[in-house]
C-alpha cells in the first residue's frame, strides 16, 4: 500500500486517519462522468484541473474524500470530482462540512466556495469554521463578482464597481479575505492564482498537509462578468512589480531581479510604526528585508503582509502561504472528549441512564 503512495500522505500527520488508496491513482480517477458546464474560458477549469491533477499526490482512498460546496459558479465543483460530494445551499457549506468532518475523522473534507458564498451570505459560517479549526480545506474562489446571478458586485469588488446593481458605482468597501481569515483566528491562510498551476498545486499540497482549517483564496478570472480582474498579477511584465511571492524562511523580495538573483524591491518593518512597507532594495538595507515566517505564533506580521496589497490596483499582492500554525483541531478534541468521557464514566449504559437515581417500583 505504502509504495503506491509515493508522494506520501502516510507521512502527513493531518491525514493519518484517512485510509490510503490501494493502487496508484491518476488524474483520470478523479474526473466524474459529468459534463463540466462552466463558461468556456472560465478560471474554474484551471482550478478543477489542478485539483484533479493534485489529488493522486495525496494517495488517499477516493471514497474517503468529500467535496462540499454552497451555491455559485464554483460550487458546481463537487459534481465534477469522482469522490463523494454535496452541492448544498448558499453560504452553508462550512457548517455542513463541519458536521461531516467532526463526525468522521477518517474523511478528507474539502469546501469549495466563492466570494459571495463564503464572504456574503455565508460569512458567519466561514469565520466560525476558521476559529474552531475544524479539519477542513476551504478553497475560496475569488472572482470579485457575482457570476451565477449575472454580474452584480460582490463583497470583494473594488469600491465604485459599475455593475447591473450598481450603475453609479458600488459603495461598500471590500473584504480582503486573507485579512479576514487571519482576524478570524485561522491557523492556515494562503493565496494563489488560478492560472499558476505550479503555485496553486504547491499551495494545495501545503493546505492538505495542515491539521485544522486551511483557507486558500484562489484569484479566479470570470471572463464573462469581470474579465481581467487579476490581469495585473498574470501579465508577466506587470506581475513582476505586483506580485509578492512568499516563501517561508526567505527574504520577502520581488520585482526585477538584482545581481543576487532576488527582487529589486523588498518588504521592511517601519521602525517607528511597526507596520510593513515596500522599499527599493539597496546594499545598506538588504539585511533589514523581512524574512517570511509563516509559522510565527503571532498573526501580526501575516496580517500586515495581507494589507500590503492595494485593493484597487492589486499592486503588492502577496501570494503563497501567509500563515500556517499548529493549533488544537476541533474534531480531534471532540473525539478526545468522547474518549475521556468513557474513561471517566465507563461506556454508556442505557438501562442505568434511564433508571436514574430516583426510581421506584410498583409491584402488581
Amino acid at each position, binding site marked *: 500500500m505504502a509504495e503506491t503512495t509515493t508522494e506520501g500522505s502516510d507521512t502527513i500527520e493531518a491525514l493519518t486517519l484517512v485510509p490510503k488508496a490501494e493502487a496508484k491513482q491518476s488524474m483520470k480517477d478523479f474526473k466524474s462522468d*459529468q459534463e463540466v458546464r462552466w463558461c468556456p474560458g472560465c478560471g474554474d477549469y484551471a482550478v478543477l484541473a489542478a485539483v484533479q491533477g493534485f489529488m493522486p499526490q495525496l494517495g488517499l*482512498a477516493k471514497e474517503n474524500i468529500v467535496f462540499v460546496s454552497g451555491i455559485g459558479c464554483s460550487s458546481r465543483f*463537487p459534481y465534477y470530482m469522482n469522490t463523494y460530494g454535496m452541492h448544498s445551499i448558499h453560504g452553508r457549506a462550512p457548517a455542513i462540512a463541519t*458536521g461531516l468532518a467532526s463526525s468522521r475523522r477518517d474523511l478528507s473534507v474539502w469546501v469549495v466556495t466563492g466570494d459571495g458564498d463564503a464572504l456574503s451570505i455565508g460569512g458567519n459560517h466561514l469565520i466560525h469554521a476558521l476559529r474552531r479549526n475544524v479539519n477542513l480545506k476551504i478553497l475560496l474562489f475569488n472572482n470579485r463578482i457575482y457570476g451565477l446571478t449575472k454580474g452584480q458586485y460582490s463583497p470583494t469588488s473594488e469600491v465604485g464597481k459599475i455593475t447591473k446593481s450598481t450603475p453609479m458605482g458600488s459603495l461598500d468597501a471590500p473584504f480582503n479575505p486573507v485579512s479576514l481569515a487571519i482576524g478570524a483566528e485561522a491557523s492556515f491562510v494562503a493565496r494563489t492564482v488560478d492560472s499558476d498551476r505550479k503555485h496553486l498545486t504547491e499551495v494545495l499540497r501545503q493546505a492538505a498537509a495542515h491539521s485544522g482549517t486551511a483557507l486558500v483564496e484562489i484569484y479566479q478570472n470570470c471572463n464573462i462578468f469581470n474579465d481581467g480582474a487579476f490581469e495585473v498579477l498574470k501579465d508577466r511584465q506587470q506581475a513582476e512589480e505586483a506580485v509578492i511571492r512568499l516563501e517561508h524562511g526567505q527574504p520577502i523580495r520581488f520585482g526585477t531581479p538584482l545581481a543576487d538573483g532576488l527582487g529589486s524591491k523588498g518588504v521592511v518593518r517601519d521602525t517607528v510604526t511597526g507596520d510593513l512597507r515596500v522599499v527599493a532594495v539597496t546594499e545598506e538595507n538588504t539585511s533589514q528585508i523581512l524574512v517570511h515566517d509563516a509559522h510565527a505564533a503571532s498573526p501580526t506580521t501575516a496580517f500586515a503582509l495581507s494589507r500590503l496589497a492595494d485593493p484597487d490596483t492589486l499592486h503588492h499582492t502577496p501570494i503563497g502561504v501567509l500563515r500556517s500554525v499548529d493549533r488544537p483541531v476541533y474534531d480531534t478534541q471532540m473525539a478526545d472528549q468522547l474518549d475521556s468521557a468513557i474513561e471517566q464514566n465507563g461506556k454508556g449504559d442505557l438501562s442505568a441512564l434511564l433508571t436514574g437515581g430516583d426510581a421506584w417500583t410498583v409491584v402488581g
Partner: protein
Amino acid sequence: MTSQVSSPAEQADGAVVGEQRKPASEKDVRRLDRVIIRFAGDSGDGMQLTGDRFTSETASFGNDLSTLPNFPAEIRAPAGTLPGVSSFQLHFADHDILTPGDAPNVLVAMNPAALKANIADVPRGAEIIVNTDEFTKRAMAKVGYATSPLEDGALDGYSVHPVPLTTLTVEALKEFDLSRKEAERSKNMFALGLLSWMYHRPTEGTEKFLATKFARKPEIAAANIAAFRAGWNFGETTEDFAVSYEIAPATQAFPTGTYRNISGNLALSYGLIAASRQADLPLYLGSYPITPASDILHELSRHKNFGVRTFQAEDEIAGIGAALGAAFGGSLAVTTTSGPGVALKSETIGLAVSLELPLLVIDIQRGGPSTGLPTKTEQADLLQAMYGRNGEAPVPIMAPRTPADCFDAALEAARIALTYRTPVLLLSDGYLANGSEPWRIPEIDELPDLRVQFAQGPNHTLDDGSEVFWPYKRDPRTLARPWAIPGTPGLEHRIGGIEKQDGTGNISYDPANHDFMVRTRQAKIDGIDVPDMEVDDLTGNADTLVLGWGSTYGPITAAVRRLRAAGENIAQAHLRHLNPFPRNLGTVLKRYEKVVVPEMNLGQLATLVRAKYLVDAQSYNQVNGMPFKAEQLATALKEAIDG
C-alpha cells in the same frame, strides 16, 4: 373542584412511605385524594427548585403527578415586581391524573407580587401561606396594594397562614457563619420543609440532594438542610397549622414496573440516546441555544460516553447544517430548536428533503410570532412545520402528547427518518418540555429495533450490463433511496439541492423529470406507515368527537372525563402523526356529527382536517401561553355537544 377535605380525619399511623420524618404530634391528619399546590415568588427566590424538590419527593412517594413550571423570560426580573414572579404548580393524587390542575388548593406566596400575580387563579376556601416578612409598605405599594391584603379583608374566605418565613429562616440559621443575606436565601427550603410536613412528603431525598448540590460548600449545604428541617418542625409545633394531609400513593394508577419522574425535555433527550443505540448509529446534535429547547443540548452534552457528539453552532442554520453533514456521514443526526429557529432552518430542511437524508428536527414550540413568549407554551408551529418551505417540500410531522411520551416520540421520529430517509419534524412545546410526570422506565429489550443497512455496492445494471450505483434508485416499498456513506468504495456520488434525475441523481432540468420527482417525494411521505388513530368512544354512539394533537392531551382527556362523569356522551381521539395523518382519520371524522378541535393556536389542525377531509371541524382556541384548563375545556365541549 377538589376540596381539601375529602375523607375523615385520621391519625398519622406510619402509612407514609419513606422511613424518615413523620409527624409525631397529636395534630389532625386528613386524607385527601388529590391536591394542587402552587409555589410563587420572585424569580430569584428559587421557586423552580422548590417545586422540583417537592415533585421529586412526591414522585418517590408514589403519587401520580403533573407539574407546570411558569417563569418569566428574564433571568432576574426586577425584584418584587409582577413580571418577575416565577411559579411552580404541582398536582398530585392517589389516582391517575392528567394535568397540573386548574386551580391551586394551596398557594405559597413568598412576597406581595407573588400573591397579586396568582390570587386570581386561587378559589376561595383554598389555603394561602404568605411570607409576612416581605409584606412591607414599600413592597406592597410596588405591586399596587394600597393597604395590606393580609389585613384589609381582601383574603376573606381564604384560609390564610401568615408566616414570617424570612425571619424564621434567619433565626434557624443563626448558629451558622452566614450573613443575613445568605441566610435569607434558604427561605425557600424553609417553605419546602413546611409543605413537606403538611403533606407528609418523604424528606430524605431533598436532604441528600442538598448535600450533593452544595458538596463544595458544606456550610451552605448544612444551612439549607437546617432551614428545611426548621420548616418541617415549624409545621409540627406551631398552632397555626392544625392539620396535615395524607395523599395515599396512587397504587391503582400505575401498572407494574419501575418508575421515575421525568420532564419532556429529559425524556426527549433519553429517547434520542436510546434511538442512537437501537439504530447502532452515533448520535450527532447540531444546535444553537434557544428557550425552551436548550435543556436538550445541555442534557445530551452530558452523555459523551454514549458516543454522543454535541455541536453548539454559531447560529440555527449552522446547527442544522452540521447535523445534515453528519447525516451524510452516517450519524443519527438531530437539531433542536424552537419556532424562530425552525424559521431559520427552513432552507436546510428543504435541502434535506431534496437530499433525502435522515434528520430529526425538534421544535419545542413557544409563544410566537417572532420572539413571542419564550418561556410560555403554544402549538402554533404546525403550519410552519407543514408548509414553511419553498417548493413542494413535504416533511413528516409528529407530536408527543405528554412529558413522558417525548421518549417514545423521539424513537418513533427516528424510525421514520431512518426508514424513509427524510427529515422529520417533532413538535413538542414548552409545557411538555418543562412539565413532568411519572414515567414507567422501559426495559431495553422493549425498545424498537432501528438498525439500518447502508448501501454496500452497485444497485443498478445499465443496458450494457455494467453494474453501477444509483443514489436515487428507490426501495419500491418505502420509496426511500439508498444511504451510501462516504468511505464506501465504489459508491462515490454527488448529491445536491438542484433537481436530480430519477435514479442517477444527476442534475436534471427536464420538466417531466421534475414533475415526477416532486410527486415521488410527496408519495414517499404520504406512504409512511403510521398506526391508525385510536378513538375513545365508550358507548360507540357519541355525536361529538373531540380531536386534539400534542400537549393538549392531558387537559382534553381530563375534560372528557369530567363530561362523562356528568353523564355526557363524547368521543375523543388524539393525533400523534400529523403528516401523514393516520389512514383512518377521514373515516373517523365522518362518523361524527360534530368535530371539535381544541388547540393552543388559532385553528391550525382544524384548517388541515377541514381542507383534507371536507369536515366541518370547529375550533376551540386559546393562545395565552398557558395550557388549557380542564374545567374550561369541559364547558366548551359541553356547549359543542348541546349546540
